[in-house]
């Protein structure tokens, strides 16, 4: 069991900077998810923690010990790869026991650990099979089993579910969460799927262009995104963003004008001045119901996606802004028709011209 801390970690290939100035502390037993668009550096960061890449700068500590110079095997980590990376010429048993061979574990101990891991992952009947005789889900479990038998302090997962079909993905997600509860080990998980991030993480790290944009608990990021990037990345379908302008400021309250309507919002005092351009963010699920303080916004329907429990109405407002409304499943709406979205007075996110939230830390 160990905590992981990164201080000023940077990574560059020649002049290309992949990671810049990453500071992050991961507590013992935490489940941390790195999430971000492809190419944001999240996998590189994971590989740096694993020791498969060397950091160009900064210090990496695992369990309080500096590990920058240590080879992967000595860092007490285990990694699960997106492609599973099972040795195709070895049986399931040998795949799982392979790492222990180098740790000079005695035979009886190897056998005990492999069989226990196989039991946890329901692989006991498959130990003599070769990877090619297994289904995708089973291969995934073998890859996880290979990590478990090494009894690492930190588990590293590199997009482990992206090669599975949708139903299996949900199942395996639950199993990984269960595994985390049972083992209590620190886990670091990379994904581009924000549903995985939201459901698994005790802490999400949102990354973009080699930088950490925001770190926090899933709901914290959902409710208080620090900037436009996080606001747009967390939540599905993505947050609606509407252009607006500051009409007047009085202390911590500003009046915003947008698409022909006005509303007052509380912000951090001093962050906005009258006349500033702002972006107003509001989540699709907050725009369906009319209420006491809501502002009705009318528009034309472009498309309707019916999911059963909800329908996503894609509409264009009179001002030209596109918004998505999460409406009840059986809502009466058809493309080309008119629809009314209801902008709540609360649950509004306001970002300044630089894309930073003016409510963050309030």
């Amino acid at each position, binding site marked *: 069991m160990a905590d992981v801390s990164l201080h000023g970690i940077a990574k560059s290939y020649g002049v290309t900077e992949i990671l810049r100035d990453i500071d992050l502390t991961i507590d013992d037993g935490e489940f941390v998810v790195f999430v971000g668009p492809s190419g944001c550096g999240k996998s590189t960061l994971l590989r740096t923690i694993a020791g498969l890449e060397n950091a160009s700068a900064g210090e990496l500590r695992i369990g309080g010990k500096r590990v920058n110079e240590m080879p992967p095997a000595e860092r007490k980590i285990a990694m699960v790869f997106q492609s599973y990376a099972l040795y195709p*010429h070895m049986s399931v048993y040998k795949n799982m026991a392979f*790492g222990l061979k180098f740790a000079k574990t005695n035979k009886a101990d190897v056998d005990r650990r492999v069989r226990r891991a196989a039991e946890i992952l329901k692989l006991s009947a498959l130990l003599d099979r070769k990877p090619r005789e297994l289904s995708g889900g089973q291969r995934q479990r073998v890859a996880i089993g290979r990590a478990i038998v090494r009894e690492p302090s930190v588990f590293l997962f590199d997009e482990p579910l992206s090669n599975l079909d949708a139903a299996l993905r949900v199942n395996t997600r639950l199993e990984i969460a269960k595994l985390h509860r049972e083992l209590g080990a620190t886990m670091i998980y990379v994904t581009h799927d924000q549903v995985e991030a939201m459901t698994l993480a005790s802490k999400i790290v949102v990354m973009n262009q080699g930088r950490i944009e925001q770190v926090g608990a899933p709901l914290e990021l959902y409710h208080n995104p620090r900037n436009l990037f996080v606001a747009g990345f967390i939540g599905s379908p993505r947050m609606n963003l509407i252009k607006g302008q500051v009409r007047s400021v009085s202390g911590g309250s500003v009046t915003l004008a947008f698409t022909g309507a006005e509303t007052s919002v509380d912000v951090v005092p001093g962050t906005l001045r009258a006349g500033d351009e702002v972006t107003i963010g509001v989540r699709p699920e907050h725009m369906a119901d009319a209420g006491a303080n809501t502002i009705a916004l009318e528009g034309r329907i472009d498309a309707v996606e019916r999911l059963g429990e909800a329908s996503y109405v894609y509409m264009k407002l009179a001002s030209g802004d596109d918004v998505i409304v999460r409406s009840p499943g059986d809502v009466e709406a058809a493309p080309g028709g008119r629809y009314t979205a209801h902008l709540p007075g609360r649950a509004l996110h306001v970002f300044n011209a630089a894309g930073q939230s003016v409510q963050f830390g309030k």
Partner: protein
Amino acid sequence: MSDITASGVQPAESVSVRSRFPVHVAVFLAPALAIYTLFSIYPLIDTIRLSFYTGDESGARHFAGLANFYTLLTDPAWSGHFWNALRNNLVFFAVHMVVQNAIGLGLAMLLSLPRLTGGSVYRTLLFLPTMLSVVIIGFIWQLMLNPLWGIAEKILSAVGLGSFFGPWLGQETTALITISLISVWQFVGIPMMLIYAALLNIPDDLLDAAIVDGAGPFSVFWFVRLPLILPTLGVVSILTFVANFNAFDLIYAIKGALAGPNFSTDILGTFFYRTFFGYQLQVGSPTMGATVATAMLIIILLGVLIYLFGVQRRLQRHTF
């Protein structure tokens, strides 16, 4: 809608078309089949047929059954040369297997290093001798190793190893090994390329996983990469075997058909050449030549069969 019903009727017709003899298949196969038959299958069968005949002074041929083979294996005038050629050929093959394929594997490993710069230049340079004519290779090496004015002695002297130099191509004890090594130098590019391609085929994730599992560079090679390229090593071995037992040109280019000194570089190819066409005082015999050729065919066939049934069945091709 009418189109759909129309096409719905057609299957009955197309079934009858399908069950007829597939003329187009025969048409496409015919050119290749004709060429192979004319230049490969027919000569092969006729060679085997000829090995059962014997010719007299008048040039007439009579069926002789297995008499030629009996002569080849037991007559002192023939069998000594035959067994000598076979033994030399096995040495020639062993040197290729041990030296050529090991160096090919080593070069392929070096080429697949991720941080290697100029890899494609090395690749091309190492493959270059393979593309040169064997006659040129033989000539160049003969010049270089010449004990009177060859460059080899000067180079060795320059680094203080001059005392090790000898007329390697002229000594009975060293000539065969020297020629084998020249051949290795020329053809090392082929195993290198095949193994290099197989190594590139192994996903990086697999090697990363082994590193995370604690395997050092040697263990990664021994436990992960080597088992995964075994099928390719098998193919390389069988290609080497067939090429070596059909070899002739390099020895002919350097040593002539007498494969001197004192037949110490004589392999089955040169032995066959002298038997069939004759050389200097030896009179050529088409029927004995056909017998030697058939014997070579049997030897190669045996080797390939042993490989196919003994080795290849146990090699598992891996998909990643």
